[in-house]
């Protein structure tokens, strides 16, 4: 095969049809990763031998007539926060660089059972806390569309690796936009599932209340395959829902005719950079052309929901990191340390009040928004993709301002726990990707994927490749 399959779905089909072997596919991805990594720094570790051995095993199994799952033989990669012993898991930090867990993350086991080939560990913001992709220990991750610009965070390597065609999909985590931000700035799709759909067991915690594990890939169908492999109840994660997840592929091609897409002009579409706004208006018009009905809706101000989420995140991160901080205070990046240590200054009643208020805000959001629409559409990032230099503020005076600008449209949905997906929706004047965010009511992932698939059938933004991609 001269040209490699462009998407995970096509790769799985090519493998199934015998047009390519897993060894060929994995070897090609590894070669690309080796070539691109000095420029992008999206892999912290490339597990070449293990990946090739797994690929040979997948091919041998297929030759015997055994196909273990939908991802049989497909190369993917994991943000370096999912336990997969004996490989170390650093969570992007320096002092945990040789940390080895004893048990693999549930999602890693599920991906393996579905047949995926793990290429290695992906760069990330230290301890998954930061929206830019800076990492002073392992080096910053660079955006494949312009290496001077951020790859987003905290799943920086996941977004960059998928965009640069180094892996067919990746697993990330999202506590305040950490899947959707990197998906947006790198021009790929990323899904933060509903809280409780995908288990976090064996994923290094940041905030038990707001951590979500989810996939990044190139198409809605790719996401559906990955989500199907990892979703579902895990007895080891009591937050996971017992109701079996649906078949995320079943209605992927059903289109959006008659579907009401809510557009919250106030708050979410205010103060959006000109190029970004223009691209998003075109994207909304495309959805309308495909049969969706655009309806104006009022959505609660994102700033309050974001701040309530931060109360949970910082208090829980402080609890999770207290021991590490006592032992290695100077090992933390200034921005990460300042944000985590904020949790020690949040009174316990304030933390509990944020948790008590959460069901009420969720109820009000669902009742207020989804009475008028089926899916909410917002910008993922309201600003054009900034440079690494412009956002390299550490823990300095502009720390909160830089963070707020990058997460204001995404972080509210971590507090609310509802599913949110970012998909490529155009490019700005500098040639950087623009992301459209789709947000649904709890456990409506299949609906979000259906809208994303319809959009990708009438646009080709997702098929564009970065230089050398």
């Amino acid at each position, binding site marked *: 095969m001269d040209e490699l399959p462009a998407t995970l779905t096509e790769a799985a089909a090519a493998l199934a049809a015998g047009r390519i072997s897993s060894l060929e596919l994995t070897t090609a991805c590894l070669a690309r990763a080796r070539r691109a990594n000095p420029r992008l720094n999206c892999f912290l570790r490339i597990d070449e031998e293990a990946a090739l051995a797994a690929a040979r095993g997948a091919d041998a199994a297929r030759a015997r007539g055994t196909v273990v799952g939908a991802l049989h033989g497909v190369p993917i990669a994991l943000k370096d926060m999912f336990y997969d012993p004996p490989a170390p898991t650093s969570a992007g930090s320096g002092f945990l660089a040789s940390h080895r867990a004893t048990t693999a993350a549930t999602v890693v086991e599920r991906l393996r059972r579905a047949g995926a080939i793990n290429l290695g560990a992906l760069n990330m913001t230290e301890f998954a806390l930061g929206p830019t992709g800076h990492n002073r220990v392992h080096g910053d991750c660079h955006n494949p569309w312009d290496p001077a610009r951020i790859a987003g965070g905290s799943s920086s390597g996941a977004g960059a690796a998928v965009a640069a065609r180094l892996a067919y999909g990746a697993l990330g985590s999202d506590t305040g936009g950490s899947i959707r931000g990197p998906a947006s700035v790198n021009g790929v799709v990323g899904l933060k599932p509903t809280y409780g759909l995908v288990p976090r067991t064996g994923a290094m915690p940041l905030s038990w209340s707001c951590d979500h594990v989810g996939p990044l890939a190139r198409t809605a169908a790719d996401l559906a395959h990955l989500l199907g492999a990892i979703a579902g109840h895990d007895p080891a994660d009591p937050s996971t829902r017992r109701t079996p997840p649906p078949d995320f592929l079943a209605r992927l091609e059903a289109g959006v005719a008659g579907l009401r897409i809510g557009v919250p002009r106030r708050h979410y579409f205010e103060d959006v950079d000109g190029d970004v706004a223009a691209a998003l208006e075109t994207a909304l018009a495309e959805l309308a052309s495909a049969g969706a009905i655009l309806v104006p809706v009022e959505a609660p101000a994102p*700033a309050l929901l974001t701040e309530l989420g931060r109360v949970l995140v910082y208090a829980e991160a402080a609890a999770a990191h207290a021991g590490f901080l006592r032992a290695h205070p100077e090992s933390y990046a200034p921005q990460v340390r300042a944000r985590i240590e904020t949790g020690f200054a949040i009174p316990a009643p304030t933390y509990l009040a944020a948790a008590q208020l*959460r069901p009420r805000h969720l109820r009000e959001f669902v009742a207020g928004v989804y009475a008028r629409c089926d899916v909410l559409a917002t910008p993922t990032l309201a600003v054009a993709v900034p440079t690494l230099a412009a956002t390299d503020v550490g823990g300095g005076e502009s720390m909160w301002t830089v963070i707020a600008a990058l997460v204001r449209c995404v972080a509210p949905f971590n507090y609310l726990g509802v599913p949110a997906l970012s998909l490529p929706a155009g490019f700005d004047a500098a040639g950087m990707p623009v992301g459209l965010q789709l947000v649904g009511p709890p456990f409506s992932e299949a609906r979000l994927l259906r809208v994303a698939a319809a959009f990708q059938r009438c646009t080709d933004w997702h098929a564009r490749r970065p230089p050398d991609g």
Partner: protein
Amino acid sequence: MNGPETPPPVPPATVEALLRLAGLPPPDPETIARIAVGAANALAAIGAGGQPGFDDAPDGFVAELARLAVDGD
């Protein structure tokens, strides 16, 4: 409901005392100032978000998500 108003920062001395109580070495004054702003924002958010009811349990979120679930499509 809009976002919380910008509140006055928590006094830096309070932040430093709380960090010491947690067994942490106090960071530099600039970082303490950042933490003070963040903590003040947290306190303000609860005021702006409405007071929880006496009977509102802090663990009701997962059940509420399940109650509001849109299964399938």
